[in-house]
């Protein structure tokens, strides 16, 4: 029991359960199958995005270009299918390849120059988003194959959408990666203390590049999932990812300075954020109040989860010294 109490996700889990019960007492529609379906969809999409950022937080860096990569892949994916009439599978593969390449560029430049990833990804954010706009000239692609649309909308059974399959697999794989593989452990070690892990013999090059490549791949998957969901490839996909991508891991107890992330707690963080924004709609909050509520909720959520590690967090910085 006490081991359970120590887990990052425990407090969040409680908040989620009690919050959901409370909401459904007031608004029974909250647990209607359709609402659960909608909730699962929004969680699925954000989950992938949050994981994409989380792995970079793990190594103590930031990836500002997650949204730009997601957007670039989304329009490439749909563009290939619409303009070049490519079939789905090769388009998906090329999409993944683009994500991988973007991630590799981020990681390679970061580790080879020693410049903060924040700066590098700020620059590549412009580059990737610029390519996106240059290619599309702000025009969406509409020709999405039926199979893709189906995947984005159909339900497996009950309220469970097909779309959750991939995010669930990703979450499980991420958990294994961060908790049961050397690569994941080395990433965390690196995030904890760069100098020490280098002295131990952990290769920075490998760790940083792998983390960014995985981040790029996840962002790519996120972009393509959004295409399935929206059933069109608009150049704006990814524009709104940045803040939620940080909010979920951080609400889940991640320390921005690196070395501490929790996959399950991050997932719970995503669910919490989704429930909050849904609750704002369900309770018909006056649009002029929505922003204010959202702000206080974020603060409250973090505060509840953070209270017990108040001391450790007190003065940790976003960026570790190098």
């Amino acid at each position, binding site marked *: 029991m006490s081991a359970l109490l120590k887990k990052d996700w425990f407090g969040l889990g409680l908040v989620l359960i009690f919050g959901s019960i409370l909401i459904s007492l007031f608004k029974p529609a909250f647990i209607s199958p359709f609402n659960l379906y909608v909730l699962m969809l929004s969680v699925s999409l954000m989950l992938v995005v949050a994981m994409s950022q989380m792995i970079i937080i793990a190594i103590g860096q930031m990836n500002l270009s997650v949204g730009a990569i997601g957007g670039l892949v989304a329009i490439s994916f749909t563009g290939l299918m619409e303009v070049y009439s490519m079939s789905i599978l090769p388009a998906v593969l090329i999409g993944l390849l683009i994500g991988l390449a973007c991630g590799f560029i981020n990681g390679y430049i970061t580790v080879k120059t020693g410049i903060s990833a924040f700066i590098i990804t700020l620059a590549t954010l412009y580059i990737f988003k610029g390519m996106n706009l240059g290619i599309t000239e702000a025009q969406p692609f509409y020709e999405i194959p039926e199979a893709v649309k189906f995947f984005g909308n159909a339900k497996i059974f009950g309220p469970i959408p097909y779309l959750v399959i991939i995010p669930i697999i990703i979450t499980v794989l991420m958990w294994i990666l961060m*908790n049961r593989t050397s690569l994941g*452990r080395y990433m*965390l070690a690196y995030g*904890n203390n760069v100098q*020490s*892990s280098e*002295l131990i*013999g952990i290769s920075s090059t490998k760790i940083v590049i792998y983390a960014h490549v995985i981040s790029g791949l996840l962002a790519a998957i996120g972009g393509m999932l959004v295409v399935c969901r929206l059933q069109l490839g608009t150049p704006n996909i990814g524009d709104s990812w940045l803040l939620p991508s940080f909010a979920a891991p951080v609400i889940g107890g991640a320390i921005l300075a690196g070395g501490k992330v929790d996959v399950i707690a991050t997932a719970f963080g995503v669910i919490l954020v989704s429930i909050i924004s849904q609750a704002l709609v369900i309770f018909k909050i006056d649009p002029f109040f929505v922003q204010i509520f959202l702000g206080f909720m974020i603060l409250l959520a973090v505060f509840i989860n953070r209270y017990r590690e108040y001391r450790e967090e007190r003065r940790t910085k976003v960026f570790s*010294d190098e």
Partner: protein
Amino acid sequence: MSDYILELNNITKNFPGVKALDNANFRLKKKSIHALLGENGAGKSTLIKIITGVYNQNEGKLFLNNQEKSFSSPNEAMNAGISVVHQERNLIRRFSVGENLMLTNLPKNNLGLIDYNTVAKESKKWLDIMELDIDPNTIVSDLTVAKMQLCEIAKALSLESKILLLDEPTSSLSPQDTKNLFALLKRLVAEQDVSIVFVSHKLEEVFEICDEVTVLRDGKNACESEQITNLNRQKLVKLMIGRDEQIIKSKKNIDFTDESLLDLQSINTDLGHKNINLNLKKGEILGLYGLVGAGRTELIKCVLGLDKINSGQILLNNKEIKIKSPKDALEKYKIGYISEDRKKEGLILMHDVLSNAGITVWSNLKKILSFLNDSIVYNKVDPYVKQLEVKTPSYQQIVSNLSGGNQQKISVAKWLASGTDILFIDEPTVGIDIKTKSYLHELIIELSLKGTSIILITSDMPEMISLADRIITMKDFKVVGETINNHNYEEMSSSIMGNIHE
């Protein structure tokens, strides 16, 4: 063919602004314990880092078993059978002890996933060899500094290498831990043909376990592979500092019937201190002895307002005071604290020497509109920096580029400059070479002669006995004894240890 397992010839290593090693030679015999000595900044750690592939030398060659090698990463050195305990702590603080020990070679199950049961089992083995009673699942950040150090050594042993490099492994160990460690090292050499390089500033230790000695001075060899039997303490010191060791001046006498300056009365704290009573008299050096983990640092931090005092009083000149923060302590009550953890709490490593040395005096020096410039600060701190013989290319040098000992000097210098009435000095000579150490000792005495009252925390018994006027012993967050120091080592040490083991 030579019987050297490791040989370094004419190694030169340049850092921006510093020549850390200058044609240095080093030879390690099989099955020997080889002391690598030198003042702070002599280049010892640099040499170790070249051997382990952390740095590449600018010139010179490295031979391992008579084969020329050059390691471009720590991994390569490790695979070639060299393990190391660096001067800096290198544990991953949020990982468990077991995982840290096994980190370079985490055991996997048949699915290729890490098997944490084996991790715990395997690491337990090494903890047992070190006679360390730690659960492998403990998170490192929950350990005391001493335990961390021992875990580092266990980690190095777990690689079962033939060459073991230990850079100041005993700096935060208690005498008992050190004794255990030495027994283990001797066993390793005798039974498993391990060769060891041992860096330390404690010469007693060197004479206790080492066979050969290499001394570096300013990056050059002052002597190379000298037999320990050919040396004595005086000779060794002369090799290291280029002149004879100075004997500490004798100490004045304190009138213990005087009123006390600072009085702690029945202090209980959040951290678990029980009913602490202490008094410090004017001009006195009050020693606070205890094994590592006795709660001395924590007591001082509570006094400085960093942690909560639940009950009890602090009196200054018989008036009750409430210290809210170190700022309060410094500015209102003229109390200062020299931290034991210079990297985390003592210095701002990324800033230059001048701003580190001047940080405590800015408030006093500021002119109208809070104006302050470098030369004002320089004039104030220069005498102290000079006095401590800080070895730095300039006042603009970034502190993290100084050697450990020189860093320590800076963290002392800034409190000298601040001119406080009461100074808490916590482990001032950990990792400090003997020359500087004796300077520091002199300085502490001089300060007290000039009227500064000092509470000195040290785990170094000889240091305690030569400096303190009165020694208070702490154990488990309680005061367990008080002795007036008569500067007789045998008597005092047995009386103190008696207090502890009562």
